[in-house]
Every structure is written in C-alpha cells, then in structure tokens.
C-alpha cells in the first residue's frame, strides 16, 4: 500500500463526487456518467495493491447519502463491482481500448441493473433507474480517463 497512490486516489474520488454533483443541462441529464464508479474501476485497475474491496464501504455509504438511496444499496453494488474488476484486471491489461470499453460498459450496466433490482426487491413500488444512458456514457469516458492516468503516471514516473 503506497501513501502516494492513496492520496492521489482520494483526490480523484473527491473530484468524482464533484463531477457527479455538477449541475448539467436537461439535454444530457439522461447521459450522466457514473463518475465515481469509473474512477473506482481505474484505481483498482492501476493500483490493485492499494485499492481493493475496502473502498466499497465508505464510498458506498457516501453515494447513498448523496443520491438519497437506501443506506447500503451502493455498498452492495460497489462490492460486487470491485470484485469483478479484480477478477478481470489481469486480462484487461492486455486488452485494447475498445475491448476495455466493452468491459466497462458491461460492468456499469450490471451496476445499474443491481441498483434497480435492489430497489424492486426492497420497496413495494418500483423506483425506475435509467440503465442504458449512464452506462453508455461511462464507457465513453473510460478511454479518456485511462489515457489521462497513463499520461500522469508516465510524467511523474512510477
């Protein structure tokens, strides 16, 4: 566990929350990327020894408080998400950008789907969740964020 990676990661997560909170025009409200989810994927992918399953608990609680969902919903979805990323990341390292993009799309879809299912099972009314929009836009921002982290890591050497 390296302190530098931890600090950089926490700053990245902070900006993820800022981006998620940013007011957006009505036009793209259906296509808000899941910023925190993408950043968590990136962190687990790039620094697997520092960032692991433990991220799910504090970040899940924060996301629940932020989005007003039942406490624990995001802890559940993030734990499964991080587990899957850890399962895949060796393979993802040799994938090209488009294959990675597809994996991120599937993971983001699964995350949204789990949220929807949890809401369905736990409430007697169905709270609809926008499944495709956020997943597609999350997959779209992945290559750019990935390139940015590679650039930063190259620039500051590691």
């Amino acid at each position, binding site marked *: 566990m390296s302190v530098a990676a931890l600090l950089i990661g926490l700053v990245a997560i902070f900006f993820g929350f800022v981006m998620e909170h*940013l007011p957006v025009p009505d036009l793209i409200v259906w296509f808000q990327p899941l910023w925190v989810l993408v950043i968590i994927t990136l962190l687990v992918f790039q620094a697997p020894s520092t960032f692991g399953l433990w991220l799910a608990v504090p970040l899940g609680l924060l996301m629940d408080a932020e989005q007003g969902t*039942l406490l624990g919903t995001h802890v559940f979805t993030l734990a499964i998400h991080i587990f899957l990323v850890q399962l895949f990341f060796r393979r993802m390292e040799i994938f090209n950008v488009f294959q990675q993009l597809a994996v991120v799309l599937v993971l983001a879809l699964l995350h949204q789907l789990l949220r929807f299912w949890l809401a369905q099972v736990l409430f007697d009314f169905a709270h*609809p969740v926008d499944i495709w929009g956020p997943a597609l836009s999350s997959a779209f921002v992945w290559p750019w964020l990935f390139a940015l982290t590679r650039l930063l890591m190259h620039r500051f050497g590691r």
Partner: protein
Amino acid sequence: MPPYQGQRTLLICLLALALMWADQRYPFVQSLRYLSGYVLYPAQQLSLLPSSLAEWMGESTTSRRDLLDENKQLSARNLVLELKAQRLASLEAENIELRELLSASEQVDDKVLVTTVVAVDPDPFTKQILINKGGEDGVFIGQPVLDAYGLLGQVVDVLPHTSRVMMIADSNHAMPVQINRNGVRAIATGTGSLDRLELIYVPNTADIQEGDLLVSSGLGGRYPRGYPVAVVDKVEHNAGEMFATVTATPSAHLDRSRMLLLIFSQGAGQVPPEDLWRIPR
C-alpha cells in the same frame, strides 16, 4: 487477487443487505447518513462553484441604471404587498375573534426560514431538489416547503448543511387537498412531470370545475392548512366508472423558483421523526 476475496465480497454484501434492512426500520441508522453529509459537503460546494461564480460576475457587472430600475420596481411591488398585508392584519384579527367565539384554537402565522435551491437531482425519474439549509438550521424530515406561489414539497432527507426536498410532482408523492370554493376533499398525487398533478378518488358527482383552486387541507398532519397547491385544468367525467379523471397544474413554480420557504408549523403540522420511520402494520 488476494486470497478469500470471494468470501469477503459475500460478507460485505450481506452487511449491506443488513444495513438496508435496518435503514428501513430503525431511525438511528439515519445518523450514519447525517455523518456522510459532512464528508460530502466540500465536494458539493466545489461543484456549485461555477454557478455561484457566474452569479457573482452577473451581480458585480450589473449597471447602476439597471439596479435603480430594479429598485424602483421592487419598491412599487413592496407598496402593493404592504397594502395587502394591512388588510390581512385586520382580517386575521377578525378571524381570531371569530375563532374565539367558536372556542377553537387560534391559528397564528407560521414561522419560516428562507432557503435557496442549490441543485436539482440528476436522476430523471425523481423530482427532487437540494436546498442549502440542513439539520444544523433545524430542518426536519417531513417539513413543508413553499415558494412564493404555493406549496412546493416536503423535506425527505436531512444532511448537516443541505436537505433533499421531494416536490409535489414526484410520482411517489401524494397529499390531501380540498377545493377552496366549496371544501370538497381529494388527494393530489404527482405524475412525474412538473406541470401536472392528478386528483384521485374524486367521485363522478363531486362539484369540481376547471379553474378551481386546490388548497392543502391539513388532514395528513404533514402540511399546514390553507396553502395553495394547484389549479384544476381538466375534469373528465367517465360514464360507467366510479371516479372522475381530474388533472391540475401546480401553483408553485416547480421548475423556476430559486428562493424557497421552510415552514415551522405550530403544533399540528409536525410529525415527530420517530413516527415517520415507524412502518404501519
């Protein structure tokens, strides 16, 4: 992958499920949410920086003439409102007197707190907004929120410095109303679109017309009595069905208002939070 990772994931998932179960039943879990609010606060403030910066720029580059114009308009409006308030004072005195004659409890003006909308929930399926007052300002869950034109909604989630308000147009929201003209009672539910409410369980024979003003009836114990909620814009009597289809337009400017009022009702309007979290059996 570290050893036993699958088992650990399972453990965390079970913990999360237990937390969800507890959150629905026990109010003390709410404090966890409240604490998260402190951590989220800086991120929320930073994300509002662009809009507050734009606002500041706008304010500091307004010309002197514009300000003078606005000042004139506002003082004219103020005069009109004061005139109305004068009449209101005498009416209120009369009202209290009449109530005393009826030996009913007197209704005093509600205490209010002014707040500003800081964000709209990005989730397109819910009609919720965030306001810049929270638990530290005395905001409580279930508190009614008004804008200058009518009832806007109620507080559903309280964080230390912000709160989440569910608007009356949210599809999970319903409130008891009555027609101002004749006192017929109904329930107004949100439809998920900001410019439309639906009245449910209105008998086909009820006296209700287009243009009727709906005011809160205070029956649910949540909203205070007598605030404007919506104006009826369509009444359809369906032969062969028990209830009429009635739609109404909310009086509050749900999509435009920036300044809102939080109401601290005296007595009746307040339901203790413990009761809100108790699930009716």
